[in-house]
């Protein structure tokens, strides 16, 4: 008998291309490959859910999408979500006046309708993705008398550099407490739950995200180009560490005046970052590429002599796997989940700017090192498929159902 999971998600491609939606879709597809039955509930606004359905591949026909009316407009991008939530809460804490009201009401409605929408479903387990859906999941699980699994893709603390919106923090913690079991996307995130939310490690399993990136390493043609390119891709927010990238760039530049530093992505820190790069005397050497398309990103990865992810707190960090898939040697913050699965890389503490710069310089100077990082790291991608990771989720289901 295949297991039937009732999932509560918040975003799903193509409407949202944040990490959460991508991971959610990967997991759903992985579960379907194993023959699991998946009912996915999404809170799309009117008419917003059809694209999601159209995206389904034939094998996903088992999946039903139940639409819940919501006051909330889908986020236009993860940036604005992060900006709204964190900016409104950093100064004072508590529910911000501008957006949290909307978000709160949407979450409330999603929770209220969760049973109503799913009462004809007979799941074996309820599985919620991040805090917005925890209330809905807990309520539905209670109604169906099945275990409730909370999946943590990111915490409020990651997004806000440990200055959380207290209301969201409380919703998260409540969800963790109510959950029969928790899945985190990394040991790093598991540790945050234990340390910051006081959750017992016994009820947390780590299932790292999978990847759908197939290695596409182009033949090496440009290793010794005159202007070696060092790449940062990510939102320009505190969490992603763009300032650390700039500080490291200053040191690298002093040794390698020809090096060029590209920051691709947008975010509220852009004006400050531009100012900072000028005051560091790097205005000629740092390029702000803005938001890049998938294809533009690919060509940047392929040209990059080194990709840097200096995040201050990164539950996973899918972007590193994309960089690896396209043949860029990577330097990863230890404060990231992805560093747990990519060992053919340099791992640095995000605050250790000098070490970061030293690693960049070494990768640029030592061709055998760059070539080896490039050729070895891709093996991670072969192992880290969504099918493999979904199998781990299924074994978590087995465990909680036995105990329930």
């Amino acid at each position, binding site marked *: 008998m295949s297991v039937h999971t009732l999932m509560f998600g918040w975003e799903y491609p193509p409407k949202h291309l944040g990490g959460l939606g991508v991971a959610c879709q990967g997991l759903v597809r992985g579960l379907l490959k194993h023959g699991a039955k998946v009912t996915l509930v999404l809170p799309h606004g009117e008419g917003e859910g059809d694209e999601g359905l159209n995206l389904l591949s034939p094998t996903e026909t088992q999946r039903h999408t139940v639409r819940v009316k919501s006051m909330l407009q889908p986020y236009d991008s993860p940036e604005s979500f992060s900006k709204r939530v964190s900016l409104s809460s950093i100064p004072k804490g508590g529910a911000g006046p501008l957006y949290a009201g909307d978000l709160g009401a949407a979450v409330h409605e999603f929770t209220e309708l969760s049973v109503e929408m799913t009462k004809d479903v007979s799941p074996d387990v309820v599985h919620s993705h991040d805090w917005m859906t925890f209330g809905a999941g807990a309520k539905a699980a209670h109604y169906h008398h099945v275990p409730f699994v909370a999946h943590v893709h990111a915490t409020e603390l990651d997004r806000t550099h440990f200055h959380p919106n207290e209301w969201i923090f409380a919703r998260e913690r409540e969800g963790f407490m109510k959950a029969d079991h928790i899945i985190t996307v990394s040991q790093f995130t598991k540790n945050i739950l234990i340390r910051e939310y006081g959750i017992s490690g016994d009820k947390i399993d780590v299932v*790292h995200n999978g990847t759908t990136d197939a290695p596409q390493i182009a033949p090496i043609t440009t290793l010794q180009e005159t202007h070696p390119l060092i790449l940062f891709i990510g939102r320009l927010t505190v969490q992603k560490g763009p300032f650390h990238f700039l500080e490291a760039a200053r040191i690298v530049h002093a*040794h390698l005046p020809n090096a060029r530093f590209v920051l691709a992505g947008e975010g509220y820190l852009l004006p400050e970052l531009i100012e900072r790069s000028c005051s560091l005397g790097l205005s000629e050497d740092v390029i702000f590429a803005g938001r890049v398309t998938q294809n533009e990103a690919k060509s940047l990865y392929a040209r990059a002599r080194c990709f840097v992810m200096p995040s201050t707190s990164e539950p996973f960090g899918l972007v590193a796997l994309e960089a690896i898939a396209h043949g860029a040697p990577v330097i990863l913050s230890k404060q990231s989940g992805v560093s*747990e*699965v*990519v*060992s*053919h*890389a*340099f*791992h640095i503490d995000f605050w250790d700017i*000098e070490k970061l*710069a*030293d*690693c960049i*310089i*070494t990768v640029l*100077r*030592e061709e*055998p*090192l760059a*070539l*080896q*990082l490039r050729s*070895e790291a891709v*093996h*991670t991608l072969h*192992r880290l498929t969504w099918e493999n990771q979904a199998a781990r989720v299924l074994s978590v289901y087995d465990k909680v159902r036995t105990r329930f």
Partner: protein
Amino acid sequence: MAPLISFYFQVHQPYRLRDLRVTDIGREDIDYFDHEKNRAVFRKVAEKCYLPANRLLLSLLQTYPDFRISFSLSGVFLDQCEEYGEDVLKSFQALAETGRVEFLAETYYHSLSYLQSLPEFCEQVRKHAAKIKMLFGKSPQIFRNTELVYSNELAHVARGLGFKGILAEGADHILAGRSPNYPYRPPSFELPKDMQAIIRKHRTNANEKRPPGRGRTGKTQNGPIHVLLKNYRLADDVAFRFSDKSWVGFPLNAETFTAWATASGGHCVNLYMDFETFGEHQWEDTGIFEFLKTLPRLWHDWGIKTATPSEVIDAWLAPHRTEGTGAGGEKETGVFDAHTFVSWADIERDLSAWRGNRIQEAAFQGIYALENAVKETNDSRLLDIWRRLQTSDHFYYMCTKYWNDGDVHKYFSPYESPYEAYRRYSHALCDLRARLEKCRR
């Protein structure tokens, strides 16, 4: 008759590198090595292994007059004794004074120089032999190359340098069903003339003439060389599996082990292992010291003899120990034919632990490329630094063959990753290059 049991313990500590930065390169008199770390490791191992194990061995040697053991102490280990542990050195000298402990020869810097430069290799062997002679009063007769890296050609080089025996891994693919418990010989062939010339140059000081009257070959300086093979099954039962609860042999007691050893038959059971097995790899609470303590008593009671590698060869050549063929029968010494390199590392037993990937190869080629430039300076400090960078551990730390993603595992290294090992090493190389450049100008 039960086979002889021959213990040899490897003792070595590398000079680990400090967290060098690119800003250090070209700075005046920058030190590459992490003395704090090296001292800390040395003292830790001294307290857990060297000192207690040597105390035990000394008392065993005093109690059982027939008990024999042998050591190979790397030159860089002996250097560290001078820096960090005179007490440790003295404990080895106390063992030497019993006259029942043999000290083997190796490359001073625990290097893989043989793979790259014969003159450099010979100089290191000579330097090591002189050090052993100075500290322990005897020139070594038996050679063991770093990590038991071995080949036919190396055996002939060692023979040319005056050694009567050389150690190697009893690798299955070479033994092809034969027992490792016999001395073997390399296939006979002449080394190229240029190699012979280099060897001749170093032989004179490296080794005194063989002591006379020791077997049939004692009379000629360039007698045949015998290869002694590690019985890796039995040796690894102690070194690796002793405390492994999932192993069928667990818990291993001295009686069982002795029964296995004698049952394996042949002329000699060669138990070669890292000395750190006692107290460091296998902690004291595993009972490893008790195990070691029981063996000589048991062997004494059961009439089982121990021998040093030299004695193993002497006994093999002595006419009265012919066995299997009846009295007076001629013993055939089999051929151990290693036409490619074997070592005692990993399951591959080849060179891939040190030269298995791009960064290892870059580092390896990088350091040996400096040989001429270093030697031209006639600067003994630079020479010493260059040689300390040849220690095989540096390359071992860069090994990635078991560096499985997500599995930060049993792999033992002072650094965070093989890439960190390379980062530090490549900075050291860059700086050394810069220094040599300066000397040239």
